[in-house]
Every structure is written in structure tokens, then in C-alpha cells.
């Protein structure tokens, strides 16, 4: 049973969307990223998306690239994700790991799934793995009872929406616009259409990410999606802060404002 889906349904039944917050492991350091994620949960984030730093993050814009480059330069290791997940999951929030595929391949797909499940992780979000290439991940996630969150995009055909919806577990991640992560002035109208199309293609739960950065945008998206995923804007609060403590405060302030936007949205 999917822990993420359970949480999303509970929130839906209580009349609101979920706030999903992304932070990369290892920024400003591993312990600091755990503290930051906990602060985010305290401030109202419902589901945590913890990113594994990777040398070639082709779906990420400059903000997340910078944070991840720092995490790698300061020696963050992939296996540290499991300990971090365990600590963050202790807050009670479902923790999904966002990772490019090669680190998982290198670790071993089944071994990664096993260790993630043992750490209390909810599952994986895989930005460069489409279900078509994911046979071993489909098997491993079944074996270890993990969520597998695949992405859909405004360019996805109806057939691919159906295929992706059928392969996903937890929710389907709808990329709001064509492009990499990072703040945008507006969330495109195509996001609402994509959510509707993805539901029509068979997905029960659809969350929207990429380009959502302000409380107003979060409220708008919460009006039609099951969850609002915010990444770069949260990471930016940490990058811009003079030190870790003030970074966590700024992060908490933004997370609280986003949560207010999400909970205040009329559905």
C-alpha cells in the first residue's frame, strides 16, 4: 500500500491539496539538509522530496544545479540518502527520493529499493526514467512495496499518459511547463489541462511541479491538483542565506506561506 497515496487521499478528503517540498541531500551539508527538511515539515510541508545529488542533472535549472554542485564538491555520498530518509521520515511525513537513474543503477536497483524501504522511505521520483525503461524498477518497487512516481509533460501523448498513469504508484508527477526546474512568473494554463488529461488517462492522484514558487501559484495549482510540488524556490532560501540557521528560518517562512496558499485554496 502506498504511504504517499494514503496521505494524499486523507488530505483530499479533508478538502485540500498536499504541499510537497523538495530539497537536495547535502546542502549545506548532509546533517544540514536533514535539519532543513524537518524545518520544512514543521512549517507545513506534507510530503518531502529528497534529491540525490548527481553530476548531470539535466532536468534541473541553475538554482538546484548550484546546490547540488555544492553537495557533490563537499563529498556527499549516495548511500547517505538512506540515513537522511530515516531521520526525516521520523517526522511522520512520507519521504520520496528524487534521483536521476544512474546512481540507482550503480547501487543496484533492487539493493537501492531494499535499503530505501528499510530506511522508511516511501519511494522514488525518477526524472530521467520512463516506465518503458524501468522493468527492473517496476519489479523492485513491487517487491519492496515502494511508490514509483513517473513524470508526464505537456508534450505527452494520450497513449503515454495512460502508460505512465498505469505504471505509477503514489501519484503521477505532472510537469507544469516544458522546461527545467526553476521559478517562473506564471504557472502555465497547460498545467490544469495536463492534470485533467492525466486523470482522464487513468491516474487517481496527480501532483504538479516545476516552476511553482509563490504562495499565489501554490494556491492556484491546489485548486485543481492533488499536490503542489515546490523545489527551486525553497532551495533558493537556503542558497541566499548568510548561514544555515537563517537559511532554515527563511525556508520555514516560505514553506509556511506556501502551506497557507495550499490550505486556503478553494477546491
Amino acid at each position, binding site marked *: 500500500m502506498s504511504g504517499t497515496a494514503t496521505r494524499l487521499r486523507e488530505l483530499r478528503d479533508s478538502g485540500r491539496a498536499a504541499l510537497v517540498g523538495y530539497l537536495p541531500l547535502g546542502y549545506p551539508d548532509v546533517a544540514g539538509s536533514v535539519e532543513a527538511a524537518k524545518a520544512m515539515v514543521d512549517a507545513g510541508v506534507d510530503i518531502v522530496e529528497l534529491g540525490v545529488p548527481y553530476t548531470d542533472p539535466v532536468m534541473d535549472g541553475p538554482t538546484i544545479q548550484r546546490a547540488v554542485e555544492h553537495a557533490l564538491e563537499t563529498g556527499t555520498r549516495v548511500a547517505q540518502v538512506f540515513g537522511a530518509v530515516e531521520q526525516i521520515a521520523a517526522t511522520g511525513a512520507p519521504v520520496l527520493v528524487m534521483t536521476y537513474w544512474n546512481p540507482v*543503477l550503480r547501487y543496484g536497483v533492487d539493493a537501492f529499493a531494499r535499503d530505501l524501504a528499510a530506511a522508511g522511505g516511501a519511494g522514488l521520483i525518477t526524472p530521467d526514467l520512463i516506465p518503458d525503461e524501468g522493468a527492473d524498477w517496476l519489479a523492485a518497487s513491487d517487491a519492496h512495496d515502494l511508490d514509483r512516481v513517473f513524470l508526464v509533460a505537456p508534450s505527452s501523448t494520450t497513449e503515454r499518459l495512460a502508460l505512465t498513469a498505469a505504471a505509477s504508484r503514489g501519484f503521477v508527477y505532472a510537469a507544469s511547463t516544458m522546461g527545467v526546474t526553476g521559478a517562473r512568473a506564471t504557472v502555465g494554463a497547460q498545467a490544469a489541462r495536463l492534470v485533467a488529461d492525466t486523470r482522464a488517462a487513468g491516474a487517481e492522484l496527480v501532483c504538479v511541479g516545476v516552476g511553482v514558487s509563490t504562495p499565489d501559484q501554490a494556491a492556484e495549482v491546489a485548486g485543481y491538483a492533488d499536490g503542489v510540488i515546490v523545489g527551486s524556490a525553497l532551495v533558493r532560501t537556503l542558497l541566499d542565506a548568510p548561514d544555515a540557521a537563517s537559511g532554515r528560518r527563511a525556508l520555514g517562512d516560505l514553506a509556511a506561506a506556501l502551506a497557507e496558499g495550499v490550505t486556503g485554496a478553494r477546491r
Partner: protein
Amino acid sequence: MTEAGPRGGARASDALHRAVSALGERGPLSDQSGPYFGAFGGRFVPEALIAALDELDTAYHKALADPAFGAELERLHRTYTGRPSPLTEVPRFAAHVGQGARVFLKREDLNHTGSHKINNVLGQALLVKRMGKKRVIAETGAGQHGVATATAAALLDLDCTVYMGEEDTRRQALNVARMRLLGAEVVPVTIGSRTLKDAINEALRDWVANVETTHYLLGTVTGPHPFPEMVRDFHRVIGEEARAQLAEETGRLPDAVAACVGGGSNAMGIFSAFLDEPTVRLFGFEAGGEGVETGRHAARFSGGAPGVLHGARSYLLQDQDGQTRPTHSVSAGLDYPSVGPAHAWLHDLGRAEYQPVTDVEAMDAFSLLCRTEGIIPAIESAHALAGALRLGPQSAQWGLDHPPLILVNLSGRGDKDVATAGAWFGLLDETEDE
């Protein structure tokens, strides 16, 4: 075409024979189509790109079936690229190979824009016109693919943006100026290792955002399907011409074919005409940099392991965490941590052999060709020449009943490398040094 066929060469090793015949049962090696080459290839990219890759695949196969497309590409190659490129015998160079070897160079250096890259670029640019897109983006390392893309964009009236690692914009400054002269925008990439792999990351990010109007004109046989298959096909002309030209000159097939391997496009182009000929040994030479043992190299088959980068599963220089390892080569065009999936497949089959060539060996061969034959090669191509020098002694083990006949793909010319070579050999005035 006058050609003697296999009688001209002695039998290659039994293993090689087995590799060829086992696959022959599943159709010719040279016609293998994507998305997978054995365990390699695929489409490890964001979902946002899948529709564009499907569109490209469809447009490509439609074009293949349309005689008008082939005729237009052939006309451009004849009247614009300057094809067929010559085949040149290099006896003074061959004397250094030993064993009485005869060595022939396939002169891709004489193509318009100075390398083999134009073969693929013109093919894809014609496809872009058919798909109705108005803008192309490209990555470039040595700058040759960027120059070829900027050239085709000027010719066919397309907007062009080229991503190039900042490190490469410095070592290939001449090509940056050429691209700008041709009207392209050159964007130096300042994140990561600032070389080819980071330029590809930026091109992919651009493509995800602009895929509706923009084609990513990928420059080698890497990346997601259909690129490895399509780019190979656009370079087949190298091998087809060389095979016919060599048959005309010698009445034989070569005993060995040597090419440098960055992403692997020039090698795949020349290999493709010989893949199903069991007497022809195929050698790919990768950048050994300062030596494989130093860790400062780009020798994927010596120091890498299967993994995924830029959309394909192949051999990859990666650390224990699956992070891409930094690479080094004196040649920007070979300085890439992964390699085309079809090469990984040929490697595992034992059909082609891949060896590292160090910076020093490549620069020695570079100098040797300059002085013995009056040809300044690209430093990339000099890796193939260094490989050929090694094949002389190795050929004693091949059991040939005649002196070895070696075909080398001279993938590009060295104009762009004059500054690097000048500094390497201490030929520049002191003020220009460093």
C-alpha cells in the same frame, strides 16, 4: 565497384569469426536498428522529450523511404561537402608502421568545414526542414560539430545556438569565432567540468524547454534513440566510399580499420561498411590522456563500466556512486565520459577492439603525419594514426600471408589545433606561450 572480397585477407581470429557469424543469424551487424544494441542504448530521458524523439524517428524513417531525400542529401554532399572525399595512400608514414604495411587515409579532413561532422549535420538539417522546425541547437567539444551545424544553419536558413564548455571555448577559440562568423550564437557553459558533457546537459535543458520549435542536432552516435542509429546512417557514406576506393586501388578489403572514438560517429561510419566482413579487424582508439593508470583520461572501455548518461546505456566513466567522472584529453573532441551504445555492443561482442592512446602518443603521430605526408590532422584523428602505428607490430600476430593493409579514418584537419600543437611542441613565441 571492383572488389575482390574476402579472398584478399587472411582469416581473422576464430573469436572474431564467431562474433560475426553468430550475429549474422540475426541479420547483418551493420543494419542493427535501435533503440537497443544488445544491452545498450535506450531512451533514458525526461518524458517531456519522448514525443520529439518519436517525431524524429518517424520523420527519419519516412525520409529514408523517400528517394527525394536521399537525392537531395547526395546532391549537397557532391556540390557542397565535396564528396566523395579522397582516399590517400601514405607510404612515408607507413614506413613507420612497419611490417611492409600499406596505409590509406580516408580524407574526411577535406570535407567542407574540415571534418566528418558535416555528413550527419546535413542529413539532420534536411530532416529539420521536413519537420518544419526553425531552430537548431547543438553541443560541441572541439568545435567541429558546432561549426558544421552553424554552416548548415546558414545554408538552410535556420536559427542556431551552440553550447560549448567554457574550457573548450578557450582551447578551440578559432572555432568559436568561425561559428559566430556563420551567424550562430555560441553559449559558453560554465557549470560542471565545463567540457563536452556539460555542453550536452545545457543543450538538453534548452531542448526540453523549446522542443516544439527546436531540433537538437546531436553530433555523434550517442544519446537517446533514434540518434545512435540515425547518426550512424548519415556517416555510412564514409565506409561505403572508402571500401569502394580501396577496392579500386588495391583490389582488396583492408586487414584493419582504425578510427578515433569520441562519441564514436566517425568510427561507426567507417566501421559500418566492414562490420559483416569477418576478415576485417576493427579498431577504435580512445583518449588515453595522461595514461589510464593516472585516472586523467577518457578511455571508457579501459576505465569505465556500463551506466546511463545523456539518454543511453553504454560504457561510462563513473565513480562508485554512479557520478560521472571528470575526463581529460589533449583533444577536446574525444574528451567525453561515455560512448555510443553501438560501440559498447561491438566491444562486448568482440567484433571491434578498443584501445587507449595517450596524449603523448597522439601528438607524436600528429607530428609524424605533418612531416612525412604534409597533412596536418585533427588531434582527434591523430589518435587513430597513433593506433595505426601500433597495429604494424601487432599485425605480425594476425597470420596474414601478405603485408597488412590498413585503412585509417582521418576524421578531421588540424587547423583548429595549431595553437594547441604549437604550444605542445614549443613552436610559439614565448609571449604566446601559456
